[in-house]
């Protein structure tokens, strides 16, 4: 199997096997746009997100090491001790762990309910955890997250434009990033995962991941397209496509290696600890890493190609390659063509490649 992936990598590297990421760019971009629109429509159609208690405000109790996982035990206690509490939800969030959420209780009620839950489920004082969240807490976290999102996007936009020396690359990378975040949030809405501050942080981390992935692929694109006008084998678009194909094995390896530890946290978080920081964070990351890798390949790279291919100079070069291929120009007379380049360093292609 390792050999299979290795051969796959070899073929992608030489161009023997190639996926039309650039050639079919309009298809990919249209598909991406569709998915984004869907992701926006899903929460609208479902009437909003499933917001966690941090956004609603209220009191929460977690009872661990319970034997009896019957929610009605907890519900009865709450109805008895805090009759005016509404939105009561008692759930079995993980093996031997119960969680009760309700509207805000007073201090004395909190103590009362805590004690009664402890007795009813037959656990010790050490096993009951209580928390209270003000209604503005979640909103605070969200506002901060938005500030973070905007600050990060602007800084990344500038930083990448400086690093890659072209705003078209940074714009495409940001497009891939937004695609990733919107789709991830859309999936969250679709499967009704609870949105908590931890999930929001997961979303923010995806930003970093998605951009990170784009930088690696774009670095290869830059390398391949450097001095493109000096060579006569591939058009600009083909160079980009080759770069994406050449980094495909890396992209796959990266997502696997990224998803493995996140999957481990997700497994522990979801099946053993139950809802909480670990599960929410890793769920967002798990979805985001996969979508992020796809976003780079199917959104950022095709979009960059689309942005560049309409440039005059590139069109001229494409025409020139076209002419060579159809035999209108002989390979040897390229003297006057290369003289209008900016004298950038020559990228010498070592392997003879047939593009078929």
């Amino acid at each position, binding site marked *: 199997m390792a050999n299979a992936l290795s051969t796959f990598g070899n073929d992608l590297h030489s161009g023997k096997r190639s996926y039309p990421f650039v050639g079919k760019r309009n298809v990919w971009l249209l598909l991406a746009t569709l998915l984004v629109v869907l992701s926006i429509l899903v929460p609208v159609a479902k009437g909003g997100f499933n917001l966690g208690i941090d956004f609603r405000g209220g009191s929460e109790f*977690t009872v661990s090491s319970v034997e009896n996982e019957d929610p009605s035990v907890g519900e009865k206690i709450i109805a008895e001790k805090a009759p005016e509490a509404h939105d009561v939800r008692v759930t079995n969030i993980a093996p031997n762990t119960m969680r009760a959420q309700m509207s805000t209780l007073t201090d004395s009620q909190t103590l009362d309910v805590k004690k009664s839950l402890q007795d009813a489920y037959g656990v010790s004082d*050490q096993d009951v955890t209580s928390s209270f969240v003000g209604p503005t807490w979640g909103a605070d976290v969200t506002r901060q997250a938005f500030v973070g999102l905007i600050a990060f996007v602007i800084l990344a936009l500038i930083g990448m434009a400086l*690093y890659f020396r072209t705003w078209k690359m940074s714009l495409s990378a940001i497009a891939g990033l937004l695609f990733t975040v919107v789709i991830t949030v859309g999936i969250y809405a679709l499967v009704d995962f609870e949105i908590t501050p931890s999930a929001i942080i997961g979303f*923010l981390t995806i930003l970093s991941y998605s951009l990170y992935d784009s930088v690696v692929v774009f670095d290869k694109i830059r390398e391949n397209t450097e001095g493109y006008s000096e060579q006569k084998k591939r058009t600009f678009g083909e160079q980009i496509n080759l770069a994406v194909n050449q980094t495909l094995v890396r992209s796959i390896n990266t997502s696997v290696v990224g998803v*493995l*530890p996140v999957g*481990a*946290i997700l497994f522990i978080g979801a099946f053993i600890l139950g809802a909480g920081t670990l599960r929410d964070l890793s769920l967002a990351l798990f979805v985001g890493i996969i979508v992020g890798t796809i976003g780079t390949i199917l959104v950022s790279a095709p979009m960059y190609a689309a942005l560049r291919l309409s440039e005059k100079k590139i069109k001229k070069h494409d025409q020139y390659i076209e002419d060579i291929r159809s035999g209108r120009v002989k390979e040897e007379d390229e003297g006057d063509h290369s003289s209008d380049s900016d004298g950038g360093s020559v990228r010498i292609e070592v392997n003879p490649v047939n593009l078929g």
Partner: protein
Amino acid sequence: MAKRSPLAKSRAALVSMAALIIVLCAGVFGSTFSGGSWGTKLALDLSGGTQMVLSPQVVGSESDTVNSDQLNQAVEIIRQRVDGAGVSEAEVSTQSNKNVVVSVPGNLDAKTRELIQASAQMDFRPVLVSAAPGKVADDQKTPEKELPKGDKKPENASDQNWITADLWRQFENTDCAAASSDKAENQDPKKAIVACSEDGSEKFILGPVEVKGTDIQDASHSQVSNSSGVSTGQWGVNIQFNEVAKKKFEEVTTRLYSFYGANQQDARARFAIMLDGKVLSSPVAQAVITDGKPQITGNFTEESASALAEQLKYGALPINFTIQSEQQISATLGADQLKMGLIAGLIGLVLVFIYSLFQYRLLGFVTIASLVVAGLISYLAIVLLGWSINYRLSLAGIAGLIVAVGQTADSFIVYFERIRDEIREGRTIPAAVDHGWVSARKTILASKAVNLLAAVVLYVVSVGSVRGFAFTLGLTAIADLIVVFLFTHPMLSLLARTRYFGEGRRHSGLSPESLGAVPLYRGAGRIRKPEDSDGLTIAERRRAARAQTQQASSAGSVPTESTGTKEAGE
């Protein structure tokens, strides 16, 4: 670029890596002599305890945020309250420049919680009686029939008729060392009360409130000057009242000064400045203040004068606290979460190990070793930060560390894939390692910069436990860079010069055959010594030669070297 051989450079890098680890270890070892330990400090969600997020609000202010001065004052208020309530090991800190976070091990009792939430109030009351802070022994107590009656209607705030028999008994029974004596909201502003001084050195019976803290316009500290304007070298605190209080304060000082005139030792010549139910300061009125600008003098140092002035300033701005969130984590749950977090990390790590061995064969061991080294530096750094800036590892922090495993491993993937690309293009393995490094280095630096930027932005904007996540994410990005430069690359350079890896044997992960390189070029590395290998393939050399002749004939702008040759000597 230094002209040292790659071999020497690699060795130097590995030595500096070892030196860094030794320095970190020595740092941790050194810290154990001043309260540090070899373990990380744990946050509340792992050790169990209560955490409250409070948002301070200035009473009567339009804006719902406070500035940084007010926030610092708020932290001070809360810290004093928590300490006053006798809670040990409490931590009070600020969060995103607007909230105050109180963390205490164990549970908070209802009384302490109430105390923490109460709004800070400053009042000025006249002193009626003062005494030593301890409880009066039963045989020393005033006999029943000699108790003050307090039956006449008091004429002014300094009138002894405020003292009732009950109040007197309460005064006698008060022990300032016990924390329970101070509840600001139980002190009726219209009646006399019993209170202790803040440092617990004195207890008082005080008359009703005469001037409120909100009437203070400003407070400052300065050196005291005598009547001829020459500085005496003493420190004093200056208060400036507003127009309304100016008049009132004149009345008060007139009355108090008359007591002072009759008997300088009379407790009634003093007025008490109260904050949060405790007496901050109880100066004697030595003059009638008509301009609303009293100066308090005494045994102040510059520091204590400044502290009192600060406290007076915030008396002018009473701060309310609302609880944003409160979490009680039981110790069992904390321990559970820590255990599970570690297990998750271990599983993740093992999966990554297996995958790298599967993908990169023996080269995978370099990934594993690099991850272990990166983990070691991160751990030592966290321990050191725990000791120096009190950084505590939270569950989110552990999640950050685990997520970082994947991102760290990716640096190695980028590097290894580059090397494989170079081998596919026909380079010898040692040359491929050097060339691959040059291009991978750029990519790794750029992509880690993105990670670091994200971590910093997350850290700056985030609230709550999330900070721990951003923190470890950033920390590991740095550790990753150090490891790639000082460990992974030098290791690979050295390995590429061994026979097994240099010739790309079957399980080395670099085998040119399985990478589909054209076999003709493979032998080159064996014949040439690694040092003088220019790492060029035959095709490249041919191209370079052609470019040279072309340049000679056309004197065109085509550079003579390919990017590859330029960087080969680095």
